[in-house]
């Protein structure tokens, strides 16, 4: 088991090192997320007043859209020079490779979310930090749910020609429950009278979905990726 997490750690460190040298995925994803929120703020903020209850939806849409962008590129570097085959041929547990990839993406998305949350709170005057810890829990669990499926699908689509089109088509139907829970949980936190019990219910459900998604992804990664 020790070796399993070591492999995951190594794969993640490799991804982060490549990323820290080029910063390509971070900057492109961040830019996309920022422009997404800006477009929403053009249409939903009139005269300095945001439309009622728009903030949670916009926050999660920005995360989902920019997440899709990042996920689509997650295995892009492995496509070049047949690096994916090299990675798959390594004498290690395949699910560990998946986990390492997932960790790398989660860190990237966390960096993006840190900016998006501040932007949404600022532009839409949403009291997102009133229950900061619960929002953090929602964001972490929601992102895990979204990215766990996304990493698997992105890996599956690596060899497909129309992968850029197919990723969102496959990803959104499966992850809609997670997005709904994220939006509803956030909405319960930012409404004028926060409903903490409701937010806790959504957090619990998110945990449940995360476990299901992670187990399914770890279980199917190896047979899906084997040629």
């Amino acid at each position, binding site marked *: 088991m020790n070796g399993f997490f070591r492999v995951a750690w190594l794969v993640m460190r490799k991804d982060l090192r490549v990323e820290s040298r080029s910063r390509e995925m971070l900057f492109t994803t961040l830019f996309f997320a920022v422009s997404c929120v800006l477009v929403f703020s053009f249409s939903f903020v009139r005269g300095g007043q945001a439309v009622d209850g728009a903030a949670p939806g916009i926050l999660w849409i920005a995360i989902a859209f920019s997440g899709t962008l990042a996920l689509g590129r997650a295995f892009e570097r492995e496509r070049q020079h047949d690096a994916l085959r090299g990675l798959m041929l390594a004498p290690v547990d395949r699910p560990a490779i998946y986990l390492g990839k997932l960790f790398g993406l989660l860190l990237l998305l966390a960096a993006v979310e840190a900016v998006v949350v501040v932007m949404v709170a600022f532009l839409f005057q949403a009291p997102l930090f009133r229950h900061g810890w619960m929002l953090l829990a929602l964001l972490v669990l929601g992102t895990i749910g979204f990215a766990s499926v996304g990493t698997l699908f992105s890996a599956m689509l690596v060899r497909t020609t129309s992968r850029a*089109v*197919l990723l969102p*088509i496959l990803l959104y139907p*499966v992850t809609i*429950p997670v997005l709904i829970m994220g939006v509803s949980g956030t909405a319960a936190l930012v409404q004028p009278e926060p409903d903490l019990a409701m937010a806790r219910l959504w957090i619990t459900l998110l945990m449940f979905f995360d476990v299901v998604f992670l187990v399914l992804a770890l279980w199917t990664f190896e047979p899906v990726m084997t040629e």
Partner: protein
Amino acid sequence: MNKRVFPVLAAVSLLVFVSAPIIIVRAPYESTMGLVQKIFYFHFPSWMAMFLSVFILGIASVFYLFRRTPAADRLAVSAAELAAIFGLMGLITGPLWGIKAWGVWWQWDARLTMAVILELILAAYLLLRQYGGAGSDRLAAGLGIFAMANVPFLYVSTEIWRTVHPRTSVVPTLPVDFGVPLWWSFGGFIVLCLALLSARSRLEEQRATLDRLYLALEED
């Protein structure tokens, strides 16, 4: 095997479907819903046929993914198409009931949302099969397993959340007068589903044979 099974299944489902209207007409009127209540004999069985197809899809996908049996893949495609069709029937008959019972065609409550999500996943599955190109079969199998994972949530959604949709416990507690036509149509839908499944997977099988023959011909 398919060749012998299909005529039997087709004959039985034809028999049930011909006799079902008579049985449904003879069933008593429900006091609050009136004539609209008869949709139920169509609505519930079509969802059950969908659940059956999704389970077949999921299990066939698992088999294909881990054992690589081509027959499982063919079964999965057929089941996915049927699940999408029966799901569509459920989604059409549902609002017809809803407008009478709730006064609106549609509400985003837990049960209805999950039903739409499952239908979306099936549509994505079919899109992937159609446009995924080479190697999409294994990918689709992965998606099929995720589709199956949704069914338990869908089924228990009325129990967890207080939704406008009637609870699952309604069906076993129905009075006999309503229960007989319901289970009759339920049987009809299930048999029809299996008949279509066997015909459709046989079509896939013949298509695969044809492809194989073409390839063999080109090699010569």
